[in-house]
């Protein structure tokens, strides 16, 4: 799929990963423009429904990234997120959602290079996986108006 440009949505925490992404920019490190970054106060705030709705609205891949454990700006937000994402990942895989299209990472404010690496590697992986047609096709199915 030579001309397929994956749409990647990144849910990141303000204090670590967002700042890290800033550093990537100021360090003039290039990374794939496919990513759309959405800033949250903390990974603990990220609802799993956001991930599902992103896929339903056309995302081909999703990144969730925050502070390393023990470094959370709110002390324990990322610990809660870690548990939530463990549960989510297992259930999503069970239901048949392609969990290879979701990448979780800890990227600190000092890890500008790591952010670029995460985005670039993941974008290539999703490019190889292709568009997430399964999900979009299901989302497009309306209720059938007149049929039982």
């Amino acid at each position: 799929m030579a001309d397929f440009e994956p749409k990647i949505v990144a849910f990141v925490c303000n204090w670590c990963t967002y700042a890290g992404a800033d550093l990537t920019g100021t360090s003039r490190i290039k990374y794939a423009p496919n990513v759309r970054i959405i800033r949250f106060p903390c990974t603990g705030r990220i609802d799993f429904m956001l991930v599902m709705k992103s896929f339903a609205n056309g995302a081909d891949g999703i990144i969730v990234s925050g502070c390393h454990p023990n470094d959370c700006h709110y002390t324990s937000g990322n610990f809660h997120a870690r548990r939530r994402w463990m549960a989510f990942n297992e259930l999503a895989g069970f239901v048949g959602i392609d969990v290879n299209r979701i990448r979780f990472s800890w990227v600190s404010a000092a890890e500008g290079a790591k952010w670029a690496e995460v985005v670039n590697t993941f974008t290539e992986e999703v490019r190889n996986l292709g568009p997430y047609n399964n999900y979009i096709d299901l989302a497009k199915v309306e209720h059938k108006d007149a049929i039982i």
Partner: protein
Amino acid sequence: MDSVKKKAKELLENQSVNLIIGYGEGSDKSVRTIFISTADEVDQLIYDERCVQNLAFYLMKHEVKHMGKLGIIAPLPVMRTILQIASECQIKEENVVVLGVNPKGELVECNGFKDIESYVAACDLDLPAKEKEIIAKLDAMTVQERWTFWTNELSRCIKCYACRAACPMCYCTRCQVECNNPQWITVEATPMGNLEWHFMRAMHLTGRCVNCGECGRACPLNIPVNLLTYKTVMTVKEQFDVVSGTLANMDSVLSSYKIDDKENFIR
């Protein structure tokens, strides 16, 4: 059942309870929940392999709660539910008398939650064999096969919410489904909307489901929704080493953490 009936009679006669929730004969050889308030009604109580409905649901029903101090016939799933809802501060120890019942129908004396905890601790809390087998089969499928299976099943859902109503843990007075700002869950029954609804319900039950199976039984279309919540039970055991409904004072799985929680999915 005699030991149970004897205890029930005692409790009603000396007015230690105003109402006992138990199993009775229903229509067409089925079983239904009965509510007895006098000693001579005690003979209506039954217990056999048909008695699978989770009676603990009624402990939180408004009209039942307001009938005074409650007694409840409690086989293992009911006991676990009581411990779990106690853990979530939905019931006080002094407001309910538990008449434990073992698989043979004999009384298990329960003077307070400590006794229930000891009984539960000695029981096999594994998932029922039949469902375990189906989950294993699903786990062995490819991602695409699982997607096809679940989207086929969940597309049939008519969003009647019987699964939610039957679940004793779904007691939120304002469910997420009833929120339209944001509208996470569509009102209409579409294949994607149905998937999101059942997924969300399973996530909200993570660490809380006591695998009583009511959701699957309540579904008018026989959709195996209980497999989703059972999977969360397995995840919670494997990944966090926690089993719900075993202690009356347990931290909620998703709002607590351990510093060394697993994170093998994070690269």
